[in-house]
């Protein structure tokens, strides 16, 4: 087990190192941030001064070395645009994103799982078709369009909900729906396929042959097992919702991490993009590591495999 833990931990560290390398160099391929911080026509001296201020006049490997040295101390650098430590910015946005992500996740699970179960036990019938349509729309309608339609209908015409910003529970409803719909559709589809697979398994057939009521077969024997991949996916999706809800947070002016990432990309704010991507990547790596360890703990075949 010890060897397994060390190996998995090593993989995680290597993954994060490769992620840091990739994001550091790829973000620099996007161009020069100085040109976005000044008006066209600004003197070359001013642009050179910006390069110097941000350390962009140094060789790339020196910049990367400094970035990693700071990272080792938990310092993600300072935003070019906000002139504020990236960690401070991230932490100021994180609670808003967490709130939105939890609300959207709750919606996506409460809608996605029951509709997926219903679609699986009523294959080819009305609820299955309705579920498929719901999933199709959720996965294909762009979230900015959904957001704008919601604003137009519920804010401008009905005047029931605030159009944007964060504040009370009413502010949360539209962004949580716009963000959650896509994930609800994903959860619905996975639940459906997982349920169909489990419902065809031998032990479920056996339960039916034993004369158990269908509701008990579904609830006790099929549903619990079908839920495992859905919850694993939901864990990863929660991290994505926190960190990359770029479009929804922008449309609803929600002050979260996704909008911070959008601003970072828009202004070529390298430290911000690097910081958000690395934190997001670290979260995913940690969740995967945790899942691997739990699997290994439960199943000895995994921890013993070479």
């Amino acid at each position: 087990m010890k060897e397994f833990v060390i190996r998995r931990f090593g993989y995680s560290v290597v993954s994060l190192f490769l992620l840091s390398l990739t994001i550091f160099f790829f973000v620099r391929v996007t161009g020069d941030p100085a040109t976005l911080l000044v008006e066209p026509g600004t003197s070359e001296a001013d642009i050179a001064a910006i390069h110097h201020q941000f350390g962009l006049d140094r060789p790339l490997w020196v910049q990367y070395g400094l970035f990693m040295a700071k990272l080792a101390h938990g310092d993600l650098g300072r935003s070019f645009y906000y002139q504020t430590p990236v960690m401070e910015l991230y932490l100021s946005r994180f609670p808003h994103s967490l709130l939105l992500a939890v609300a959207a996740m709750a919606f996506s699970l409460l809608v996605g799982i029951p509709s997926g179960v219903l679609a699986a036990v009523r294959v080819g019938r009305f609820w299955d078709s309705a579920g498929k349509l719901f999933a199709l729309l959720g996965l294909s309608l762009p979230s900015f369009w959904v957001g704008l339609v919601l604003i137009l209908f519920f804010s401008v015409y009905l005047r029931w909900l605030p159009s944007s910003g964060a504040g009370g529970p009413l502010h949360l409803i539209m962004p949580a729906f716009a963000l959650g719909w896509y994930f609800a559709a994903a959860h619905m589809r996975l639940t459906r396929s997982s349920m169909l697979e489990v419902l065809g398994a031998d032990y479920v057939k056996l339960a039916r042959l034993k004369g158990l009521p269908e509701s008990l077969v579904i609830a006790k024997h099929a549903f619990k097992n079908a839920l495992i991949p859905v919850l694993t996916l939901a864990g990863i999706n929660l991290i994505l919702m926190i960190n990359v809800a770029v479009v929804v947070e922008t449309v609803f002016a929600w002050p979260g991490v996704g909008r911070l990432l959008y601003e970072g990309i828009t202004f070529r704010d390298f430290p911000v993009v690097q910081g958000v991507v690395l934190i997001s990547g670290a979260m995913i790596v940690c969740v995967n590591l945790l899942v691997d360890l739990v699997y290994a703990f439960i199943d000895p075949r995994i921890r013993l495999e070479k």
Partner: protein
Amino acid sequence: MNKPGVPVRPEEGAAASALARRDVLGLLTLSLGAGLPQPSAAAPAGQVTWGVHISLAPTWFDPAETPGIITPFMLMYAMHDAMVKPMPGGQLTPCLAESWSAAEDGRSYEFVLRAGTKFHNGDPITADDVKFSFERYRGTSSDVLKQRVEAVETPDQRHVVFRLKDPWPDFLTFYATATGAGWIVPRKYVEKVGDDGFKKAPIGAGPYKFASFSPGLELVLEAFDQYWRKTPSVKRLVLRVIPDESTRLAALKRGEIDIAYSIRSELAEELQRTPGLVLKPTVGSAPYWLYFPEQWDPKSPWHDQRVRLAASLAIDRESINQALTLGHSHLTGSVFPENFEFYWPPPKPAYDPEKAKKLLAEAGHPNGFDAGFYTCDSSYANIGEAVLNNLVAVGIRAKLRPLERAGFFKGYADKKFKNIIQGASGAFGNLATRLETFAVKDGTYAYGHYDDLDALFAQQAAELDYQKRKEILQKMQEIVHERAMYAPIWQLAFISGVGPRVGESGFGRIAGFVYTAPYEDITLKQA
């Protein structure tokens, strides 16, 4: 001290003078009239909320870090004040300085501070703060200022003298309009809290005090009732960041905000149709143009002045203006901002496709010609599409090549483009700084040069007589126009919306400034 002092007259209008010789009495009369504290009106009351299109950065709370864009001035006009700044009365309006004068030899400027002015923490504004603010300044053009200013002297707490290494006719343009060097911060407070502390809790001398800031969400300001010019009418200002313009318009319609910045095209039409909302177009300092980088290449069709003129005559500016900015952009016919000092107004630009075809035929292209690429910043590819249609209609067949903004301006500056470039500039300065960048030898965006323009540019740089310098700079603009070095498009309008609660919004009161200001003049309608 300067002896004898040559006062600088803050002239009315956009083309305010930097070095006009006038008598001291005239200056003092005007400046004191403009600057005397007004009797306090009623106590500030109510709240005005903005929907701002861009994320507000704490770096904009500190004038020392003013970058080369206009956006930070949106906040600086509220929280801070300058010695001299653009105001409704003119580009060089005395504010914290009640007057100033330039030495005969152009090597020094003396400012007299207005008596009784205070920072938000109650500290008086002194010459020491002015010197500290200048020396601390590290924003745009700081290198130019530091290289040319030899010393800042403070003979007493109300007088500040800037000694220059050499005569520099554009000193006031840079100090008062193009940078944040003349915006004053409290020395004692900054030294106490440090740069980061200042950005977290800025203290200035403007009409509004910092109250709170949630990064990415909103900035809240409270009225400063001891502001020297007048007590603000509105008690509380809230600047909410709403990045999506459809959402900004929805918030304005619902009354969640009172002022929405940057509402364009179809949404602007929607705003115009909505009862109770008012469309507020303002024109900044950003002209757009076509540039012909091959005009110095004898083998290129663009070498022929008639071809360049034909391109200009082919552009249906009126129709494009109506379609894209509801007719609010200014068709000045110039590639230089009309609100800049030393501006020369050219004749109204004509739309004459028949004449354009005739000129092309005379130049040896009766069936038009393949003009290669039309390169532009992709953010403004909609302008490019419209202009390109016009060019194709007369036979100038080019292909649109929109490039992402940063890549476009880098390629433009690195002189990598050919054929046709759709350019623009909103940089600060005056006509001399614009000509230097775009029209003379070694200019950042100049792909070639004309000897007579270069000679005139050198001449004006050494000319201390304001009127003579103006004549030279206007002559240069005439040459740029006559030679059709550029085909001007327009000076772009920035369109915003105002809700029904607002009385005076502050839009369009300061020439070339697209945001609301002065904030102390903003009012709410009486209930």
